[in-house]
């Protein structure tokens, strides 16, 4: 079947609303949700801050898909990569692919970490603590290596079978996540809350607020809101989902992303956080975020299967994506070899629990790195012509590297990361992307103006 990689999707291949509903609901209920929910509790979040923050943040994410990504996707109907090639030039897209691939590798590493925690339930080896950076036992290393190698091999052989399996697992997995929450809630009621209302139980026993655990950043309403909004920043504001939504008959179909947000990033995060809060209430010294034992405690073998399958089915396509991104840089090496090497890199990353244990910060960084390119696409599509400038400048001039886009991307990144480092405020990572988007937009307009004027002068001369 044609994937319309270098041409607009024709009307005959455009899809209805239901296609997007299922895709988004499945894609955003992943293994990493079992890490993110507990990390909110470790960050000392309060009940109102969590519930309201997730509600608002996810709503903003859905609106970003609807009003930033979908209008461009349904007008241009091109993949992000082809659109980027026309705007930025092939060489800059290659650098973008490299950055994307590296981030995918680390993300896949965190998913392998999640799956490996399930092995610890059976083999009883010491598993990483919340603030561990390095692997802490031979059992952990062997477990990550075996799981990582298996996932890498399957990804290298082709991910279609796993993608189909993931589709089969999705409805079951969503319900298991939901049941995690129900069982955790019941355990709290049994222990503490017979005479408490649900809200009193939530705010005084589960998400109590107060200080975060040592080594964690304190989360408020604003942290939760911005995290929920920006954790998929690469996809909406960063425009990755142009490649998907170009198939939508109408731009409003992007509202289907709400299925993913409110199932995966609302219900699943809340359910996973309840399990971790329960663990802390039973033993405050046990602050390890280990999805395997958490899930096993709540739902037995079914819970453990959920951890393995959720981690595996999401790590697999992530490694595949990273492999494709790297292969674009090294087109002469076979996809099998590149994907296998990428999987090995992800496996090595998975050995280090610091990536999974600091997943909130990592996900924010991931979105931040790819965000300026989304701003470039947005400005190029809507604004450049209004300033009397040429859009899709690389295609127009036949150049491989659009300096204006590179300046907008790298200078924005430099300023945003610089602010976080200079102020020594790691939590600002969750907020700098918003002003960063405007900065990238302004930089792209100004640098395009200068570049295009210079080129025009040179042509005249």
């Amino acid at each position, binding site marked *: *079947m044609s*994937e319309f*990689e*270098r041409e607009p999707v024709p009307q*005959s*291949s*455009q*899809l209805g609303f239901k*296609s*997007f509903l299922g*895709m988004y609901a499945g894609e955003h209920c992943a293994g990493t949700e079992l890490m993110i929910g507990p990390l909110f509790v470790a960050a000392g979040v309060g009940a109102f801050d969590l519930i309201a923050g997730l509600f608002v943040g996810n709503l903003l994410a859905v609106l970003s898909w609807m009003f930033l990504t979908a209008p461009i996707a349904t007008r241009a109907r091109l*993949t992000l*990569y*082809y659109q980027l*090639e026309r705007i930025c030039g092939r060489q800059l*897209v*290659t650098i973008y*692919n490299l950055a*994307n691939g590296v981030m995918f590798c680390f993300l896949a590493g965190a998913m392998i970490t999640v799956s490996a925690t399930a092995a610890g339930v059976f083999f009883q080896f010491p598993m990483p603590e919340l603030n561990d950076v390095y692997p802490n036992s031979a059992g952990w290393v062997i477990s990550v290596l075996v799981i990582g190698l298996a996932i890498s091999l399957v990804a290298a052989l082709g*991910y279609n079978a796993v*993608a*189909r399996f993931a*589709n*089969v*697992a999705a*409805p*079951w997995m969503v*319900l*298991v996540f*939901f*049941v995690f929450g*129900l*069982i955790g*809630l*019941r355990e709290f*009621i049994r222990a503490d809350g017979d005479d408490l209302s649900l809200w009193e139980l939530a705010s005084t026993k589960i998400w109590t607020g107060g200080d975060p655990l040592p080594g964690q950043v304190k989360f408020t309403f604003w942290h939760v809101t911005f995290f929920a909004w920006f954790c998929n920043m690469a996809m909406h504001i960063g425009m*990755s*989902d142009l*490649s*998907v939504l170009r*198939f939508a008959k109408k731009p409003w179909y992007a509202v289907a992303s709400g299925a993913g947000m409110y199932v995966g990033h609302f219900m699943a995060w809340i359910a996973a956080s309840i399990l971790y809060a329960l663990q802390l209430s039973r033993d405050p010294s046990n602050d390890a975020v280990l999805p395997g034992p958490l899930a096993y405690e709540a*739902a*037995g*073998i*079914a*819970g453990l*299967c959920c951890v393995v399958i959720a981690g595996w089915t999401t790590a697999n*396509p992530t490694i*595949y*994506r990273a492999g*494709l*991104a790297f*292969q*674009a840089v090294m*087109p002469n090496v076979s996809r099998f070899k590149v994907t296998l090497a990428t999987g090995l890199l992800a496996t090595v990353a998975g050995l280090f629990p610091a990536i999974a244990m600091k997943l909130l910060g990592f996900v924010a960084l991931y979105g931040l790195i790819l965000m300026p390119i989304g701003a470039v696409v947005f400005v190029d599509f809507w604004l450049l012509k209004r300033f009397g400038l040429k859009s899709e400048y690389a295609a127009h001039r036949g150049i491989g590297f659009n300096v204006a886009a590179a300046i907008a991307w790298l200078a924005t990144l430099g300023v945003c990361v610089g602010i976080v480092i200079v102020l020594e405020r790691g939590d600002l990572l969750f907020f700098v992307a918003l002003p960063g988007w405007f900065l990238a937009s302004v930089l792209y307009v100004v640098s395009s103006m200068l570049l295009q004027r210079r080129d025009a002068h040179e042509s005249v001369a």
Partner: protein
Amino acid sequence: MNPLRSGAMALSMLALAGILIPGLRYLFTDSDDVQLENAKLIMTIATFLWFVTAPIWMLRATKAEDDSGAPVIPAKDEQTDMSAS
């Protein structure tokens, strides 16, 4: 729909109920009659039942859609393949 697929679908729905109902029952039953271990056992059986029966109708449904030529969203992963372009 053929009887095999209908039967498999019915069993799959039963499996999903087997995941959800023990959790709900555990939450809403005050007495200690409903033990967590029983709920876990039912969920494990339901999990097994789901993965045995769901592929029979879900994968066939996917294949039928593929064969019919109806458009589907190509995997995002495959669209990143710049080398193919």
